[in-house]
């Protein structure tokens, strides 16, 4: 009964059927492209992920571009999950260049410290 009614409607308005077919086709293409892009993105993210450096005397920031393909990104470091608050677990990313600091975290400086060869004017040490 429903099919009969639909067929009648299409007979009266064939443009509606054509438009529907066009929309389905466009949606299929969009979903296919999104799937391909997503797969490529995940692959690129894995390929760019850097291993957690363990060697002594290391500049950790320099590991951004030296990662190997078998180091998975996006794992939880577990380092800041605290027993008494139950919060704070943050998603790591293996040090990739697209690192986004966790929301609500300490704000980095506007200007990084730079090397200096002159005599110090003040001292930052434990107190």
């Amino acid at each position, binding site marked *: 009964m429903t099919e009969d009614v639909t067929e009648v409607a299409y007979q009266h308005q064939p443009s509606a059927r054509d438009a529907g077919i066009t929309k389905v086709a466009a949606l299929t293409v969009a979903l296919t492209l999104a799937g391909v892009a997503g797969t490529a993105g995940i692959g690129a993210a894995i390929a760019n992920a850097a291993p957690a450096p363990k060697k002594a005397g290391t500049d950790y920031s320099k590991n951004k571009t030296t990662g190997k393909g078998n180091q998975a990104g996006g794992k939880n470091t577990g380092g*800041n999950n605290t*027993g008494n608050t139950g919060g704070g677990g943050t998603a790591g990313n293996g040090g990739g260049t697209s690192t986004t600091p966790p929301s609500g975290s*300490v704000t980095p400086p*506007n200007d990084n410290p730079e090397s200096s060869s002159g005599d110090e004017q003040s*001292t930052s*040490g*434990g107190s």
Partner: protein
Amino acid sequence: MIAQMTIAQTRFEVWGTTAHLLIADTAALPAAETALRRVLRRIDRACNRFVPDSALSRLNAAAGRTVLVEPMLLNAIGVALRAAEQSGGLVDPTVGPALAAIGYDRDLAAIPVDNPAPIRALPAAGWRTVSVNDRLGTVQLLPGTSLDLGATAKALAADLAATELATRFGCPVLVNLGGDLAVAGGGEPWRVRVTEDHRAGDGLPGQVVSVRSGGLATSSRTVRTWRRAGQQVHHLVDPRTGRPADLTWRCVSVAAADCVGANVAATAAMILGPHAPLWLAQRRLPARLVAADGTVHTTAGWPSQQRAKEYAA
């Protein structure tokens, strides 16, 4: 152009450590020192848990009841709770009882050099147990708990003072409170030596870096120490365990947008131990970490250092 300006400076003792003020206007130094001392007095009256009639001591004594607190303490508690949130609870103001349980229940100078009693481990109640009503200006602590603002109040004082002085005198300013350092007012970068003990001068190895804005702080486990039952104890308590933090790092220096942030990150790094470099790098915080064996590690653009094993024997 600081390099071509005359820098005036003064030092004085405060909170068992040294305050160091530098200002790029010689004539402004006396008034600037007066203003700095005023900020420190306000923080001290509000936040010093070793002063019986401070606002914090009154709040701690009233744990379990809702207390109307003065604006400075309310601000300092807000800063401490944000620090706890930012650090995932690693820097937690409810460590007051934990610090007392390991022996840090009075000014450092008054702690017995070697108490034969072993420490007690008392995990923190957790910062989420603190109830704050900003609109009414009230705070309520759980019964039996107390706050210690030592991890943030000194850095907050440095931030407040540096901003106030730079605004008031219209020139570059550096305020250093025992290694918690804030700069404001622009100008050429300040040259700062990072090392294990801020009073060590050239006696300990370190690194000189230039800092243009924001804050720089160093957290160390080798300065505020005492002995209990024959064991050396330090003041950086892990809120999760109530015990002094692990011994992975001798000291950690961090640069951030302000001194509070720098100090929070440095303290959190000390507590995190081996996880600290990744934690700092994920937050893009430039840091210098000195391992127990003297090896120097850096993160997120901290300038390189030629002598990588400077602390090695």
